């Protein structure tokens, strides 16, 4: 099975974010970058598919040189090789999707996996956009995946329950927590990953469809009213919720 996992580099969740001097992007100084956490579920699922069906797992990333360090984690988990499409531009989601699709057309994978969203811009649009560009079926936010020959059965969370979706290969899947437990690479795996190939290609970014015109920090809430855990405190909370917030 020819499996491609599309990965991205994101700031660590706990990193403090500062707005850069252009007022539109973050200042990367001092920001710790990691492999997008949802992509680890996608890599793990790709590895499981390879274990069950044979074949190879290729990581595909659109990004700059510094993404290599994070791609190495996926290689250490067990992916066979990686392709980095070099793009220094601060493109939009469509620009990344279109560059991924260009490479995927050539690779012709049976299965394309994504994390459900990257934790920087949280768009959740990469999987469906690539599927549309390649005219493939997509199943998003998958928590359970079964493949039998070329038939796929996947479970996904929806409001108020779960949906079971069927499709056939080739197909695009976006991985949600619950799909699997990503493995931790051991030291020998990390050493081995250093010699695995990361092929670099030049990217061609299309013009921006969506542009960030300003990035703000959200307004800090004024300090809330703090009460104590006595019967009086609880009564006062209920009064505030009724009379001030008017929510009950």
């Amino acid at each position, binding site marked *: 099975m020819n499996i491609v996992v599309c990965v991205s580099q994101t700031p660590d*969740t*706990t990193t403090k*974010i500062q707005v850069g001097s252009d007022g539109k992007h973050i200042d990367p100084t001092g920001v710790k970058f990691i492999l997008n956490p*949802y992509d680890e579920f996608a890599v793990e699922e790709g590895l499981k598919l390879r274990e069950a069906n044979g074949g190879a797992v290729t990581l595909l990333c659109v990004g700059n040189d510094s993404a290599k360090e994070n791609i190495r984690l996926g290689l250490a988990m067990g992916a066979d090789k990686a392709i980095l499409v070099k793009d220094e531009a601060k493109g939009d989601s*469509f620009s990344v999707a279109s560059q991924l699709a260009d490479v995927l057309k050539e690779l012709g994978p049976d299965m394309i996996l994504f994390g459900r969203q990257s*934790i*920087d*811009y*949280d*768009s*959740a*649009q990469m999987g*469906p*956009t690539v*599927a549309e560009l390649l005219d493939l*079926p*997509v*199943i*998003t*936010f998958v928590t359970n995946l079964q493949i039998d020959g070329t038939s796929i*059965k996947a479970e*996904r*969370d*929806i*409001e*108020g*329950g779960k*949906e*079971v*979706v*069927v*499709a056939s290969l080739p197909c695009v899947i976006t991985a949600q*927590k619950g799909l699997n437990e990503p493995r931790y690479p051991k030291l020998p795996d990390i050493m081995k990953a250093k010699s695995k190939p990361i092929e670099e290609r030049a990217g061609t970014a299309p013009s*921006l*469809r*969506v*542009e*960030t*015109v300003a*990035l*703000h*920090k*959200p307004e800090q*809430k004024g300090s*809330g009213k*703090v*009460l*104590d*855990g006595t019967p009086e*405190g*609880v*009564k006062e*909370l*209920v009064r*505030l*919720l*009724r009379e001030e*917030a008017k*929510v*009950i």
Partner: protein
Amino acid sequence: MKILAYAEARDGALKKSAFEAMTAARQVASSTGGTVAAVIVGANVASLADQLGAYGVSDVITVEDNRLTEYDSGATAKAVAAVASAEGADLVVVSHSAHGKDLAPRVATKLEAGLAPDVVGIDGSGDDIRFVRPVFAGKGLAEVKINTPKKVVSIRPNVFTATTADAPATVSARNVVVDFSDADFRSKVVETKVTTGKKDVADSDIIVSGGRGLKGPENFNLVEDLAAALDAAVGASRAVVDAGWRPHSEQVGQTGKTVSPTLYVACAISGAVQHLAGMSGSKYIVAINKDKDAPIFGVADYGIVGDVFEVLPMLTQEIKAAKN
């Protein structure tokens, strides 16, 4: 500006997100000038059209096909894009719901339109219309502009509160035939497992969540009782989901669900950045925690510094009494 709002239907009924999409579309129409039409896609959905009149939308387009008894992202995207093109829509509004997240990128790509996903605010008007969306786990708010002539937005559930129009509209519904082929139905929902008797954090107005401070799954009845008194959904922090106390479907936060209810009650949740990412957009936040320095108090409108084991039973009683 011609605006097309997608009215999400499931199991023969319009979802709350459908009315929110109408509300957001009307907001743009009133600031920019223009008209709002709605599109409903499914099998036997014509009878649902009348419900949109109360939300001020008279022009309702239905696309019906027996193969759409259950959702299919490919076919639904084809239908919405076809209607948007035929109607010359400048802006398509979709909910950022489970189905909408699937649908909006496909519709945008078909229309060669830019997409602003997970939008929580719409500023400016006309050519200067800007969409506000949380980024970096809610630590930033980005204002984005869509450069393409056609635009698609998906709006975060529960933010554009569904509001009926001052003057209800008389609905005139029309059916549009979309030329589907079997190849359009390639990701078919074969089963929907509905969680019965439980509200879902993803579309609930009030959420009561519990964290590790509850000390064990057996104590979650305190959270469930308060949730029942408030007619709320039960949520959970990552720590208690990872510990197996609660199902993942209840998890609020970065690896769980992002929620924006009217009221969010965090019980014995310290407020790690990953949790705040999923709930800091709530309109009112109540925090109950023993530790007065817990980060959750930093985002709370109202806080009680106290022991959940004492506070929750009292609070449940007081709420019940207040509601009677």
